[in-house]
């Protein structure tokens, strides 16, 4: 390999490893649709204002627009239903409805009042699993976001998935960020874990902001353990636990698996398997996790989506994560 090629290969690896650290919020489609609805309202108001303004003086037209805002509903407050079914997807029901965002309302882009933040919990196998929670985040600064995420992580019963739990029963007193380091102050009554594993829940939640990789907690300086050692091998990103979706359901699974082979399975409320598909995620041979997405169409009802791998040894189900959701 020539020197030039070696430099190029190194840069490729750096860029791909860096890209893997970027957390992507799961409900962005809902945010985009909110933006569409806002744009439609603006266009409708602009059109209404122009038509009224044609026969009136400027001041009168402005007043008319104000009245229109207060008394008339725009013709399309919400985007039209969207079908989203690739031809290869199994169709269990009609293909007419849209994939809705998770149960929480999406924030407007750049709104700053709330943020969709990653919160890590321990789950089966004593591994960390990630949920995204839309919560108030103060002024939207990195410190405010980290404080909000940690406070949510420590709130009893905050995990949506009943299989997940927090090992921190505590209160956050303060969070400060300097460069790549975040200092977290907890209430003096907080019991500090003596082992190496439990602090990782706090560390992974506190280092979700790009550029921050060190947590100072009391006299300790903590870093993320290798994802291979602490994160659940497989987790379901979408739909989130208790999500309400349209009939076109996008399932996103993330993790690592032998030969990158994972399985997505969806059961109806009676336990009957209605969808089972193989997907490719990351492989332990390459030290990165990877996501896979598929879209299926389901009839209205309650379902459980499962992500797992089949054991290469005996074919048993391993590393199972599951979420319950509702198709309306």
């Amino acid at each position, binding site marked *: 390999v020539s020197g*030039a090629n070696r*430099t*190029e290969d*190194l*840069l*490729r*690896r*750096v*860029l*791909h*490893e*860096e*890209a*893997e*650290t*970027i957390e*992507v*919020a799961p409900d*962005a*489609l809902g*945010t*985009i649709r909110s*933006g*569409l609805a806002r*744009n439609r309202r603006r266009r409708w108001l602009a059109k209404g204002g122009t038509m009224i303004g044609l026969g009136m003086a400027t001041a009168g037209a402005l007043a008319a627009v104000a009245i229109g805002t207060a008394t008339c509903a725009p013709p399309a407050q919400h*985007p*039209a*239903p*969207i*079908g*989203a079914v*690739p031809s290869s997807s199994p169709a269990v029901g009609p293909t007419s409805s*849209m*994939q809705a965002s998770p149960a929480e309302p999406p924030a407007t*882009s*750049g709104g700053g009042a709330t943020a969709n933040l990653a919160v890590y919990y321990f789950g089966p196998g004593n591994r960390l699993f990630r949920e995204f929670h839309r919560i108030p985040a103060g002024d939207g600064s*990195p410190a405010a976001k980290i404080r909000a995420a940690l406070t949510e992580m420590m709130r009893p019963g905050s995990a949506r998935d009943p299989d997940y739990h927090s090992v921190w029963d505590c209160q956050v007193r303060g969070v400060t*960020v*300097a*460069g*790549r380091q975040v200092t977290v102050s907890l209430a003096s009554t907080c019991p500090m874990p003596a082992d190496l594993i439990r602090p990782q829940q706090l560390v992974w939640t506190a*280092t*979700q*902001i*790009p*550029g*921050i*990789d060190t947590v100072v907690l009391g006299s300790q300086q903590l*870093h*993320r353990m*290798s*994802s*291979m050692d602490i994160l659940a091998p497989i987790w379901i990103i979408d739909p989130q636990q208790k999500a309400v979706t349209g009939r*076109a359901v*996008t399932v996103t699974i993330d993790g690592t698996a032998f030969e990158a082979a994972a399985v997505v399975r969806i059961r109806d409320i009676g336990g009957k398997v209605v969808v089972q598909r193989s997907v490719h995620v990351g492989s332990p041979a390459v*030290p*990165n996790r990877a*996501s896979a*997405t598929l*879209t299926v169409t389901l009839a209205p009802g309650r379902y459980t989506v499962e992500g797992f791998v089949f054991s290469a040894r005996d074919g048993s189900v391993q590393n199972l994560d599951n979420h319950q959701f509702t198709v309306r």
Partner: protein
Amino acid sequence: MTDDLWDADEALTRLFNAHYRPLVRLAALLLADPGSAEELVQDAYLRLHQRWHRLRDPDRALAYLRTSVVNGARSRQRRRAVADRYTAAVRHAPAAEEPSAEAGALGALRRAEVVAALRRLPSRQREALVLRYYADHSEAEVAEAMGISRGAVKSHTARGLAALRPYLEAGR
């Protein structure tokens, strides 16, 4: 339904499912403030939805999204540079300029140095490197996304690589 019959809403959903995540990661690599990557990409999807009646082609739509992300990132970088000059604020090594550490093939610290150096490059050089070596585009595709000639892509790529070489080769 064939591709050319997608309406704007359906196109948005399909293109979101297929490309949103990689585009956010592309934007995060192009921006000095990766935290605004999602907002930038969401704006690109909103513009795509408005123009879908003129595009009506998934391949052209993806090219449109990429170009929109590249241009948007460049515009934000320019605004940020202007704001920095006016505020002349003393910053503590801005968090946004360095990546989170995760286990990987390269040491986290070394990777952080390379990424920090990448973010200090002129916008055109950074764009050429990210599109070529992260998005795996051909020179022609990079030229289209950046709106420049293939010769200019070669030049920006070579200069960017030369600037990063000391960081990439450090410790070898």
